[in-house]
């Protein structure tokens, strides 16, 4: 039970080139994370058969649904995928009950005239707590309700795999978390593969166990969720997992890197790979120096502060001597960090960049 995909599709200014597999069940929830226009939705549409790749193959649960070499390209109707659209895509001229009813048994007229049809629709309506909405039209529903209807309709068609295309993006922020939890709970018993597409790293983190980071049509990083966040490996992956500090870096020793724009020479816990082009550190990993710290402790000047209700972000530059790592002091880029306390008003701080938290990155996966 899985999705296997290896496809290419070229547009004028964009090339999609992705290959990955998505296994099934709770542990196999796969998240596709990327900025808008990176090709994540396009990938889903190719799996569902709405778009046709230029070349490659797609397999769903062992069945080839697309193969450019042997000319296989099954219609979306024959692929048995459940696709949840960002806009929900409910049928506006049908009531909620009719929307769900028409999807039962994958839309065959025989299914709609079966004696058990009405009770199956009733069951789905009750299961998704939309029973009282059965006679309403989609335009009379709230965003959250529409999403529940779309989910019930999708599951009514008995899909083998589920594709979620930014299912929460159209919701107001205060509704989003609640709907996300409902969605996650509703799908917890689904036995097949689930692919979740989003530009929100928090959503992907909560929803998925496996992550694929897409950047301009290519996979920038793929792996178990926690590994990807701990070690993004590529610049796009670091940026998309929320790393605010990324700078050009060069290898300066077995476990040492030079970062000119920060004016720092940093020790790393792991050996530095030869191909390193950039270094990164997450804002919340920079901290005040403790007594046990021996390396990567420097004096920093606080350049600016920005306050949010429950946190303070500071922008700091290193006070190391001019010429360290080959940089003039006046040309240093500020490093973003989460301040330890709301009261910090000092002009300079002594901070530590823990060696095990330094991200060693390459520009791309290629």
């Amino acid at each position, binding site marked *: 039970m899985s999705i296997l995909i290896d496809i290419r599709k070229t547009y004028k200014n964009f090339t999609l080139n992705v290959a990955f597999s998505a296994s099934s069940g709770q542990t196999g929830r796969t998240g596709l994370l990327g900025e808008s226009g990176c090709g994540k939705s396009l990938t889903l*549409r190719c799996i*569902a*058969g*709405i778009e046709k790749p230029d070349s490659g193959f797609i397999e769903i649960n062992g069945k080839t649904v697309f193969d450019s070499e042997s000319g296989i390209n099954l*219609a*979306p*109707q024959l*692929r*048995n*995928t*459940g*696709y949840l*659209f*960002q*806009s929900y*895509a*409910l*049928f*506006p*001229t*049908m009531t909620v009950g009719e929307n769900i009813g*028409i*999807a039962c048994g*994958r*839309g*065959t*007229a025989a299914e709609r005239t079966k004696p058990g049809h009405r009770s199956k629709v009733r069951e789905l309506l009750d299961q998704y707590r939309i029973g009282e909405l059965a006679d309403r*039209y*989609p*335009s*009379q529903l709230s965003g959250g309700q529409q999403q529940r209807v*779309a989910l019930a*309709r*999708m599951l009514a*068609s008995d899909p083998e795999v589920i594709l979620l295309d930014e299912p929460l993006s159209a919701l107001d922020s205060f509704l989003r978390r609640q709907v996300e939890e409902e969605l996650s709970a509703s799908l917890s018993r689904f036995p097949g593969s689930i692919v979740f597409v989003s530009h929100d790293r928090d959503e992907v983190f909560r929803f998925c166990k496996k992550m694929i980071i897409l950047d301009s049509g290519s996979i920038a990083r793929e792996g178990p969720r926690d590994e990807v966040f701990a070690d993004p490996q590529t610049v796009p992956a670091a940026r998309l997992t929320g790393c605010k500090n990324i700078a050009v870096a060069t290898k300066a020793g077995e476990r040492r890197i030079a970062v000119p724009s920060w004016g720092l020479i940093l020790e790393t816990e792991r050996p530095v790979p030869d191909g390193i082009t950039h270094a990164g550190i997450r804002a919340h990993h920079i901290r005040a120096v403790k007594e046990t710290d021996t390396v990567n402790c420097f004096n920093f000047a606080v350049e600016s502060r920005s306050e949010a209700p429950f946190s303070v972000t500071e922008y700091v530059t290193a006070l190391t001597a001019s010429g360290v790592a080959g940089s003039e002091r006046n040309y240093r880029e500020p490093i973003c960090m989460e301040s330890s306390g709301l009261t910090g008003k000092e002009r300079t701080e002594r901070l530590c960049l823990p060696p095990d938290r330094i991200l060693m990155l390459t520009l791309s996966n290629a």
Partner: protein
Amino acid sequence: MDWSPLVISIKTSIAGTGIALLLGIPAARLVANMRGKSRAILDGVFTLPMVLPPTVLGFFLLVIFGRNSPVGQLLLSFGIRVIFSWEATVIAAAVVAFPLVYRTVRASFEQIDRSVLHAAKTLGLSERTIFLKIMIPMARPGIAGGTILAFARALGEFGATIMIAGNIPGRTQTVPVAIYFAAEGGNMTRALNWVIIIVLISFSVVALLNTVGEPKQ
């Protein structure tokens, strides 16, 4: 007063509009799904009857259905003579009404959110079910509007009608044709009566068009 022109006009317009709908809706669906050069060509062909002078359409229809053409010959072998028959008024009305149905319905089909149709496909609905149960209901206001416009146009048809159906009172004489011959023959009162009737009908049609509501939602 002889009411036959009005009866003929109404019958002709209803039949012509019916044919325009039966051909225009599938044509709209066909072109709405097309892209590129073939779409531009087909769209041009389907729109042509709207922009060409009706007499040019009448000329083409004469050539197609005339006694010396293959189509005319074939029909004649079944004992059907199209030119100067009531059926000729219907053909003329259908041809001029067709582009109005085609263009309004095509615009309605193209306004349908693509993801709704994509969702229908992934849910397993057949193309036939999608067309009949989703696209047609969603395009309902466009179809209604197109129907009314087509009816109004068919009712006013003169040029092509006079060329292929002529002016046979009680058979092919529609209201516009009756007005022309009454005025030409100096019977201004008769012409005015028909003018008033056609203005009233046309005004009612426009009023009806304005009340064609939003889709049921």
